[in-house]
């Protein structure tokens, strides 16, 4: 049975599915990275993905264009970021609580909104037509390469975009003035404001970008992955993304590697649930346990670096 499993893992279509599964997690993980770099904790990613998945689909349906759907999801995501920012920066609601509130909104609120806009209850099965979905793309030349071609070609455009965004996020953070400001504000807001950088403005920018990225993740789910919207579809990816950010040391590439790990675990789980005698549930555990272990290792490694110079009161 184990041989069976290993054999199926090294098949091209398995690796293809890993990439496909990773993409939405990756968008959300990058969203977490950008926010965290500015010192803003965005735990509302789950809710943002749920809401943007819904609106992405609705916009696509109303305009019969998947492009508008994707763009709409991004805009809605950014607006949700703005909402969180407003309540947190201006009205001083704890940002963590604001995130939890957005998650609540994404739970039942989406079902409600779907009903309000379309009269449907809980899923959009009735509305899906293939022209609404994000088209897939065969990369010329590469698609002809055996195995590698099967793994890399034929993904949805947004899948490629997800991995492209790893590089784009890195570029934003490390090669643009905005990214410089974001990192400064996140690490030492006093230093930033002492040179005239508006800490408030930068935090808003960061959470807006974060929301927008999460919106891409949401659009991916409803306009490709699940082919429509249903109320259980995000299934914790927003939280996994937080873990991916933590395990990836807060960097885009690290977040990508962690997201791939989770993608792998999810893909394994689907494979395994078919096999006799192996619990898909235990396989599902892997990503979450890995995060906890990864986080512990990460903390241990940073601790070693600081000289045991003073007795630190327990840090908050």
């Amino acid at each position, binding site marked *: 049975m184990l041989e069976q499993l290993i054999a199926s893992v090294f098949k091209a279509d398995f690796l293809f599915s890993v990439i496909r599964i990773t993409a939405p997690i990756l968008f959300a993980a990058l969203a977490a990275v950008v926010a965290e770099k500015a010192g803003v904790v965005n735990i509302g990613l789950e809710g943002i993905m749920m809401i943007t998945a819904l609106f992405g689909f609705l916009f696509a349906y109303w305009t019969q264009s998947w492009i508008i759907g994707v763009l709409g999801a991004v805009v809605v995501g950014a607006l949700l970021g703005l909402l969180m920012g407003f309540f947190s920066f201006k009205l001083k609601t704890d940002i963590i609580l604001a995130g939890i509130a957005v998650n609540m909104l994404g739970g039942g609120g989406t079902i409600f909104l779907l009903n309000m806009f379309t009269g449907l209850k809980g899923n959009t099965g009735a509305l899906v037509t293939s022209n609404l979905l994000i088209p897939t793309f065969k990369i010329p030349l590469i698609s002809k390469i055996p195995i590698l071609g099967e793994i890399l070609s034929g993904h949805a455009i947004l899948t490629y975009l997800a991995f492209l965004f790893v590089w784009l996020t890195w*570029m934003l953070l490390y*090669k*643009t*003035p905005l*990214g*410089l*400001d974001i*990192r*400064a504000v996140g*690490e*030492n807001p*006093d*230093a*930033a404001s*002492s*040179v*005239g*950088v508006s800490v408030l403005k930068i935090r808003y920018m960061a959470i807006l970008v974060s929301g927008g990225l999460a919106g891409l993740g949401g659009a991916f789910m409803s306009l490709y992955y699940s082919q429509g919207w249903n109320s259980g579809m995000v299934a914790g990816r927003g939280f996994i993304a937080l873990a991916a950010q933590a395990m990836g040391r807060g960097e885009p590439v690290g977040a990508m590697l962690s997201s791939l790990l989770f993608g792998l675990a999810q893909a394994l789980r689907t494979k395994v649930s078919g096999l006799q005698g192996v619990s898909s549930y235990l396989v599902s555990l892997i990503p979450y346990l890995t995060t906890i272990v990864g986080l512990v290792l990460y903390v241990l490694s940073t601790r070693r670096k600081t*000289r*045991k*110079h*003073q*007795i630190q*009161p327990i840090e908050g």
Partner: protein
Amino acid sequence: MEQGEYVVQMKGISKVYPNGIAANKSVDFSVKRGEIHALIGENGAGKSTLMKILFGLEQPTEGAIIVNDEKVHLASPTDAIARGIGMVHQHFMLVPSLTVAENIVLGITPKKSGMFIDYKKAVELTQEYAQRFNLHVEPDARVIDINVGMKQKVEILKALVRGARVLILDEPTAVLTTQETVELFHELKNLKEQGFTIIFISHKLKEIKELTDRITIMRGGKSVGVYDTASITEQEISRKMVGRDVILTVEKDEAKPTEVVLSVRDLQYVNEWGKRVLDGVSFDVRSGEIVGIAGVEGNGQRELVDILFGLKLPEEGTATVGGENLIGRPQAAIRSLGVSYVPEDRMAFGIASSGSIEENVISDRYHHRRFNKGPFFKMKTLHEESDKLIFDYAVHCKSRKQEVGMLSGGNIQKVVVSREFSSDPILIIADQPTRGIDVGATEMIRKKLVELSREGAAVLLVSADLNEVMELSDSLIVLNSGKVVACLDDGNWDDIMMGEYMLGLKRQSDEEIGRSCHA
């Protein structure tokens, strides 16, 4: 147009804070173009406030500022920077994970193609300025990896790159080693030759004598004079800086100290930037006496107190209370040895500000048997205890249920001392116990300290308030650069003597110190 002799003139500057404290009282301060001007004074003399006003971080209550012969209103650092004034803060404003070049161009980042950082240009800019002003930095090094000396150069470059012609340096040598200080002075003299004006805030007389052209001395919020550096001696500066305008007298019975309670030997402490902050400090405090630690802030007092309360680990040395080790022990253990601690920052460490007065005064004793019956508090006993403490220490409040943070500074401190003094301590460590509070509370707290010491407690008083430390102490220890430079136990001390010890002009011999400090 001919430029005036003075690049900066501050006239009649007063700054009164909402709580009534006057940090600056009608100060006149002028700096000539191209000079290095020292601004000197003890902590609390008002020099930091004056410079914050010049840099736009604070607004004066009264007075005018004239820059380059033009009257200006400096509402924020941006205004000051626009006028060519730059400030190098004592605590660096740098982002650790960014490179030197990135830190320098933060906020004025050069762009290429409108969207990207022109990093090459940032480096070029850095190198250009670095070379021009002989401030050697590594543009690509991350700030977290460079040493303190280079960090300071980066801060100076930050100001220069933004067009500063007047540089304010706030206690720049406080964090530098001797070698780094020498380098800094080279750089500053270089800048002066290139026509820059430097305002040098410090209290290190030797450095000021070496580097500066003129000195403005501040004391008690006022300027007590402007002098040419060459024509005033260190003794004279010290006298003007450290003179007391009002002599406080405290009624005190003669101390009859008995056995040693606190014994400190050969403490050595090096901070995270590699600077040796405590260099072989030894002294004893006996039951029944008040030992005061005098010294300009920043000479190791903070670190000493932290070590005694288990918050820092020294490299070497011992500290014991009644023979029991203090070093590295948890605060609960230290307290159970009979040690009480009045922290310098009462808001951060002395109280839980949204808690009630009662909740605050019992925080060191809430677990004692007399307050508990089984799992529960004996509420009545707790209430009685709080009410008694409030009464004994004259805390002005509505009731024990009142939120501590709502009280005035003096009353908050009374809450703190009511707790710390009432636990029957054998050693009281009091760090700036009367800073920033009203006269009534100050008097009460000082009286209590004397009372407790005469009843047998050993008191270690750390205070930057010269009055306080000179009048309350039975023995005086002066710290300078982490060393004990004087130990006086005969009550024969005066302002002039204290000033000279505190500012490093004079030093007792080791035998003298040993004799008086019982070490």
